[in-house]
């Protein structure tokens, strides 16, 4: 059976990742077109109901590897490789996220499989899957096919939407023997939240701050501007990792996805991993001193200049306008 296997990631409370559910729905659709079925793999102590519930998104079958820990890629590579080989599965599909990249890459080596990543769409040609993979900072889209099976497809964040179809999946437990090297990395702490817990998802207006703010103190400018418009402040991974701003405000691949009425990016280059978290904003305004910054390719208004000169005056002007 030319099946498609999806890895369904879950958090410590057992909630499945939205991007994994999207990948299941996408795989179910594609499997229908190539005459196969979609299955999912879960690891760890996932309850029967929860595993079977993936059927609601399109999985016909769920393989459950209870003995395999969640959160690190290599044990999951062992599990996926076994399920793919034992069941003659043709493709593995991953929703956007970090772990999917690592698992997909490991499977590439393990199974001698072709891999595509940051895939934004998948189509069927002559009964085979073809991945649309944006390259060169999204300036071109390559249609990439596989010369052999299995093929590995790693989606971009939010590329695939979860669709509830009703239904329940058959759950099959699998015993997986872990490779020696898969047990040499141990999770000490998972999912630590650093910095204040801030809610940015409900804001209509977001001022995003990046490395261009210069230092943690630079966020004062972003905060004052946001306040003048009644908005909140968001950030890039670069500044969150640098400890300038709390993790809860991070937008992008390993952060949040937002779609406010206005996203005002100050000192943000517009890397793809940031873009995927904010590109659906209604209006995007970017201030950046580099005229070649990628952010200008997807902003509605681009201002080329020094934010340290522009932002304080803009805050004053907005305050004056609102006051008057």
């Amino acid at each position, binding site marked *: 059976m030319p099946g498609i296997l999806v890895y369904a990631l879950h958090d410590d409370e057992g909630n499945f990742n939205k991007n994994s559910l999207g990948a299941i729905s996408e795989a179910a659709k594609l499997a229908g077109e190539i005459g196969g079925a979609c299955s999912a793999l879960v690891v760890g102590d996932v309850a029967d109901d929860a595993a079977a519930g993936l059927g609601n998104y399109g999985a016909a079958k769920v393989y459950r590897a209870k003995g395999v820990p969640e959160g690190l890629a290599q044990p999951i590579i062992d599990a996926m490789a076994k399920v793919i080989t034992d069941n003659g599965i043709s493709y593995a599909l991953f929703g956007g996220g970090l772990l999917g990249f690592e698992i997909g890459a490991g499977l590439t080596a393990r199974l001698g499989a072709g891999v595509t990543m940051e895939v934004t769409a998948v189509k069927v040609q002559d009964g085979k899957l073809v991945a649309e993979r944006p390259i060169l900072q999204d300036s071109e889209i390559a249609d990439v096919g596989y010369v052999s099976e299995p093929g590995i497809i790693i989606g971009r964040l939010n590329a695939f939407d979860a669709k509830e179809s009703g239904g329940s999946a058959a759950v099959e437990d699998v015993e997986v023997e872990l490779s020696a090297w898969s047990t040499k990395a141990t999770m000490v702490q998972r999912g630590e939240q650093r910095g204040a817990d801030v809610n940015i998802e409900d804001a209509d207006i977001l001022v995003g701050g990046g490395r261009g703010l210069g230092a943690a103190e630079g966020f004062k400018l972003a905060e004052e501007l946001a306040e003048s418009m009644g908005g909140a402040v968001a950030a890039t991974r670069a500044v969150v990792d640098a400890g300038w701003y709390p993790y809860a405000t991070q937008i992008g691949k390993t952060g949040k996805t937002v779609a406010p009425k206005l996203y005002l990016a100050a000192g943000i280059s517009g890397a793809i991993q940031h873009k995927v978290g904010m590109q659906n904003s209604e209006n995007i305004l970017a201030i950046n001193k580099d005229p070649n910054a990628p952010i200008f390719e997807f902003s509605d208004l681009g201002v080329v200049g020094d934010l340290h000169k522009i932002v304080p005056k803009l805050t004053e002007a*907005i305050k004056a306008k609102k006051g008057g």
Partner: protein
Amino acid sequence: MKICVLVKEVPDAAVQKRIDPSTMRLDRSGEKNLNPFDTHALEAAMQIKEGGAIPVEEVVAVTMGPESAVRALHKAVALGADRSVQLTDDALAGSDVCATGYALAKVLESESPDLVLLGQQSDDGECYTIGAVVADHLQMPSLTQVIKIDVTDGKLRCERQAEYGYDTVEIELPAVISVGDAINEPRYPSLKAIMGAKKKPLDNKAAGDVGIEAGQVGEAGSKTKVISLNPPPAKEAGEIIEDEDTNETVEKIVAWLDERKLI
């Protein structure tokens, strides 16, 4: 311990990158440079060496690429690597991720490193995956996007962001670690180091020297094939304002916001 750092020569950031339609491969003509993400991996290696928590005998820069890629190795050596290894072979041209990861693993195997470090991505390929491919071939534990490495009791304690926040992971050596660009601020090479770089030992290897099977690399060994290239869906180009007179710029921004009822 021996640290190998994977490096790559990429088109300079200022060069407009394009695909050669006749080969479907990246056109690599024009100015080139050491992949900027690799400088963070080199810096991480130097900090482990200088940190002294574990004795480091050698830092070796390793690349796969055409002859011209030797310049990336010179830069890597100027940044602190003790010597370098270059894998060059016509048979490798056109390798996809699967084939490249295999070839790199083979050349690394010939060095028996205790730690392999690499950058989070290459500026041109944007694949983010090579570290994990190499690790599985080398049968070593691995983690990518690492922003902090501490060496304690001969093990690595690494931190990185994943889907749900920051993860802290303990990893035994030998291991393969790809580092994020927030891990450090790479140093600038001294003039003396730049001048001395060409004198440091450089090993040239062909595919056969490290046991690479010809059928597993290059176009023949690649498992993916680019069928066609298409422009992305057209998006209306945004308006651009160059800031010459800031008062005027601000007026224009406010008008734009006002028009859209955002203030």
